[in-house]
C-alpha cells in the first residue's frame, strides 16, 4: 500500500486527505505542524509527502528542502516523492525550487484529491493495489 504524509495547517484539508485516502487504499498520515512532520519522517518512511506551501511559521518550501537534506544524510533509504499543494500563485521561483528539489507535482488548491491519489498510485504500480490498514 502506498504511504503518504500530508502536511497542511488547515485541519479540514488534512481530514479530507485521510478520508479520501482510505477510500483509495492510500495509507495516509496527516500533520498540521512542520516540526512534527519532520520528526515523523526521521523515524518512518513514506512514499509521498504532500506539502502545503503557505504555512506558518515554517513554509512548505523550507520543509521540502529539509526533507531532501535529511535524505542526503541517509543515502541507503529511498527518496520520497514530493507534491506541492498551494492556493498561492505558482511563481517561476516556486517552479525552479520544485525542479531543484525533484518535486513530482505542483497542485493548485482546490485540487481534486481523488485524481491526485490515483495519479500517485500510478507512480508506484507495485504498491498500488496492496491492502493495508489506514492510520
Amino acid at each position, binding site marked *: 500500500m502506498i504511504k503518504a504524509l500530508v502536511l497542511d*495547517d488547515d485541519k479540514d484539508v488534512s481530514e479530507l486527505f485521510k478520508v479520501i485516502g482510505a477510500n483509495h487504499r492510500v495509507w495516509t498520515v496527516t500533520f498540521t505542524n512542520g516540526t512534527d512532520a519532520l520528526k515523523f519522517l526521521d523515524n518512518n518512511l513514506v512514499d509521498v509527502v504532500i506539502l502545503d*506551501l*503557505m*504555512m*506558518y*511559521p515554517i*513554509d*512548505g*518550501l*523550507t520543509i521540502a528542502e529539509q526533507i531532501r537534506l535529511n535524505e542526503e544524510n541517509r543515502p541507503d533509504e529511498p527518496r520520497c516523492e514530493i507534491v506541492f499543494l498551494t*492556493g*498561492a500563485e505558482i*511563481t517561476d*521561483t*516556486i517552479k*525552479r*525550487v520544485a525542479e531543484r528539489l525533484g518535486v513530482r507535482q505542483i497542485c493548485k488548491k482546490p485540487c481534486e484529491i481523488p485524481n491526485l491519489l490515483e495519479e500517485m498510485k500510478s507512480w508506484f504500480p507495485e504498491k498500488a493495489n496492496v491492502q493495508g490498514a489506514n492510520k
Partner: protein
Amino acid sequence: MTRTISKPAVTTLATLIAAICAVSASGQDSAQSQNEIFFRNVGYIVGLLTLLTLAVAAIYGAWKKQALAEANSLAATRKEKIIELERDKANLQLKISELERETERLEKRNLRLQDERGKETG
C-alpha cells in the same frame, strides 16, 4: 414626519388594551343587554389577539437576536481565517524572496566562475 414608537411603549399600550378588554369583559351585571354581551365578547377577542401578537413579537425578537449573533460569529471566524491566510502568504513570500536572492547570488557566482575559466583557457 414619521414617529418611531419605542418597544416598551408598545408593550405597555398592548398590555393596557388587554387589561381594559379583560375588565370590560368581566362585568357582573345580570341584566345584560345584547349590546353589552356583544362588546364583552369583542373585548375577549381583542384581548386574546393582543396577547397573541405580543407572544409572536417576543418569539420573533428572540429568533432575530439569535440569527444576528450567529451571523456575527461567522463573520468573526471568516475574518480570523483571512488574517491567518494573509500571514501564511506573507511567510511564503518571504521565503520566495530569500530563494530569489540566493538564486541571483548563485547565478552571479556562476558567471564569475565562467569568466575566470574563460580567461584561464583564453
